[in-house]
């Protein structure tokens, strides 16, 4: 009886495997338009970002480069995340459509999220000497 339950437990665990997503690139994601993937990329700082809350508070547009180096426009339906520019890496969840990546979740990897490592002493020196 207990063995049966343990078998069932393993069954549940195995069954949950199928639900995992995969990390893709923009190119491999566009092979399957409409399906949602994680794409790991980096913010392309050389191109302008668009976030104009007066026009639409739920649309933030920027360009990102994926691990293969391909640059695509990314349309995020939400407010512009804090410290976006300082992100070292982005994990975007969404799908490709007409060459643009539509995403509804962005996870940023910052140098350090909970600890401020940047040396912020520079500005104070002049005033204190």
């Amino acid at each position, binding site marked *: 009886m207990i063995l049966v339950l343990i078998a069932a437990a393993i069954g549940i665990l195995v069954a*949950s495997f199928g639900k995992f997503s995969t990390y893709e690139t923009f190119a491999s994601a566009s092979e399957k338009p409409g399906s949602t993937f994680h794409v790991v990329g980096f913010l392309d700082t050389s191109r302008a970002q668009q976030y104009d809350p007066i026009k639409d508070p739920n649309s933030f547009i920027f360009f990102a480069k994926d691990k293969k180096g391909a640059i695509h426009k990314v349309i995020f339906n939400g407010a512009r995340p804090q410290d976006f520019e300082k992100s070292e*890496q982005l994990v975007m969840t969404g799908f490709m459509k007409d060459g643009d990546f539509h995403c509804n979740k962005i996870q940023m990897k910052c140098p350090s999220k909970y600890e401020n490592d940047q040396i912020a002493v520079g500005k104070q020196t002049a005033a204190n000497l």
Partner: protein
Amino acid sequence: MPGQLGHLFVIVAFVAALFSTFAFALAARREALPEGDVWKKLARWAFVIHALSVAGIFISLYYIISHHLFEYNYAWKHSSRGLQVKYLLACFWEGSEGSFLLWLIWHAILGLVLLRTGRQWETRVLSVVALVQAVLCTMLLGIYFGADVKVGSTPFILSRDMGLFDNAPMFRDAATGMLRRDYMNFITDGNGLNVTLQNYWMVIHPPVLFLGFALTLIPFAFAVAAMWKGEYKTWVKPALRWALMGGGVLGTGIMMGGAWAYESLNFGGYWAWDPVENASLVPWLTLIAGLHTLVIYKSTGRSLKTTLIFFILTYLLIWYSTFLTRTGILGDTSVHSFTGEGKALYWHLITAMGIYLALSLYFLLRTWRRMPKVAGEEELDTREFWMLIGSIFLLIGSLFVIVNTSLPVWAPLYKLVTGADIAPAIDPVSMYNNTMVWVGFFVALFTASVQFLKYKKTGMGPVWRKLGITAAISLALTVLLVWGQKIAHMQYMAFTFSIFFALVGNLYYLIATQKFRLLKAGGSLTHIGFGLMLLGILLSGYKKQVISLDRTNAMQQWDFGKKTFEENVKESRENVLIFRNTSVPMGKYMVTYLGDSVVKNDPPITYFKVRYDRLDPESGKVVETFYLYPEAYVNPKGQDGISANPDARHYLTHDVFTYITSLSDPNTQSDTSSFRPFKVRTGDSIFLANGYLVFEGLNNKVNNKNYNPQPGDVAVEARLTAYGVAGRLGASAPVYIIRGNEATSLEDTLRDIGLNVRINKILPDEKAVEMGIRQRAQQDDWIVMKAIIFPYIGVLWIGIVVMALGFFVSWWARRK
């Protein structure tokens, strides 16, 4: 100096713990002999010295932080001068070293309690405790072996010794290239506590959580001690009490984290199946499973091995959760990322887990065949059988959660085998929910039904009757709730039933069988709390509603593949923009943004005043009005953007929850940003866009809070009152100061109407004053906010309190 002392304490604590471990072990080996007593005495002294040293470490570090000794990296990194006193403790455990220290402190205190209460178990249990303490101390050692191998990291290191200034010329003496003697003049303040952590939960949540972590050590230590001694009877009672305590405290600690997330961290709720949350939930589940199997063993002699394994597993999982959350291995999958120590900590924690695993396996293998057991299988109509099944369900649930949470750990291996680069599920919350709802379903059913069974043998007749009554009542309640709350999913209907079954069954048992003898009813009470908690989770989670839906832009947006317009809107548009003094409908409320005000803390915090009017749907009249003040740190510490804290209105039946997601930048206004001059005499009015200002005259007594008087100052304050169509809007008091040869003007703001007022100059000949007035245009002052309604969240909090109370009652009732 305090740093050297602190470091010395770390070393003494480590050596004393190590010595204590061996001395207790020797005392255990030579138990009956006179030399055993000597060893025991020595071991006790060593442990007391260890505990005192841990206190010494704490005091040294606290001294450094509270005296703002910023040459120490820890103080510089985690604290600042402007920090309120209550947060000084919080910055203590913001860093990795401080939280290890917190853990050490709790272990030391619990160890001292065990010295007094351990009796025949003292030597073995404390030997395990001291071993763990020694391992924890190494985390703080910060000693290098060769150039590359670093063991631990000390909180007492000076920034200059970390090489932080090596590439900063301003700290160097230009002539010699050495560090300047006066380099500390450059570092006048620390980085401070991260603003998102400046919250009272940060003060109380970590200590409770770490006490919970620390308490799981003791059942583990007893399990090891029992195998070591080969005596499996008398350890049950103390282990059970400690496990009960641990279950209560750890459960409370975890849910305090949930309350914090709900209240402030903008995760959009109290539980997001974030890896850090999962990592602390899993050992709690296995601890609860072990608690139940221990009760089985106590009553029937069965499930001894299962219990031992559960307690060992719990403790290993506690360390594994530390491993997951501290080493940065979770990487992209967690919003919590405590990185920093990296590789050194990675191997350090693996070594620590290896030590505990080896210790446990050694004793398990050595004693496995000799452990007492009861012949034959459990009968189907016994309490012990179903309790075991319930525990196994808890184990299944925890395995499911931990395997999924650990995905980043095993994904590289998976890639090696299959070539696929797997990522966590797209929607992890529903993935976890959809499985865990069934675990919850079975566990909830068992919490009620199994109590009606008896150990060893039950006559099933009366049990069926009781279960039948419970099921009937629960079914009726379920139908009402499913219909009332419009629950549409099958699994949640089943879940609703199981919750009511748990509540009704346990109440029934409490009334009919236990006749309200509360001291005996700790179990039932805990189960009722658990049921209420699940009910709160169901009601608030299933019916959570984002009311800030932006409908204006919805048409031009893309299709999210949902069936209806409403669903598409919900999917994409949860942020709404509101201009100052305009209203936007949200749910049954009209929401108006009224303005902001800045409190000059360090760092300054901005409050946004938002008015909610509930309208009667038929007459359109306002039936209820309340104000919310969500707050945000705007561009804190040179960061870009905002760090927002929500505000919530609490009702018995639901909470209305609001936070800011974006706002207008006060610096880049397109408005008429110059001050327009107005010459006024006492009694004159100045007309504004939406009202007027009355100048009431000058006053020598300055009340303006932003004015710091200095000797020799000549200062006057102007009194102005603003009126609108509806009457008085507020008062303003700009200040004019002559300090030495210089005249300065201190402006005042009336945020509600976007007004800045200052005194340009005073014209004594004309008995007049020239005021400078600037009014911000309304279209330049706006916020983007999100509003969520959580129904019946109160049920969840009540459930947690009842559950914790239940644990405590059980613990108390078993004191003799």
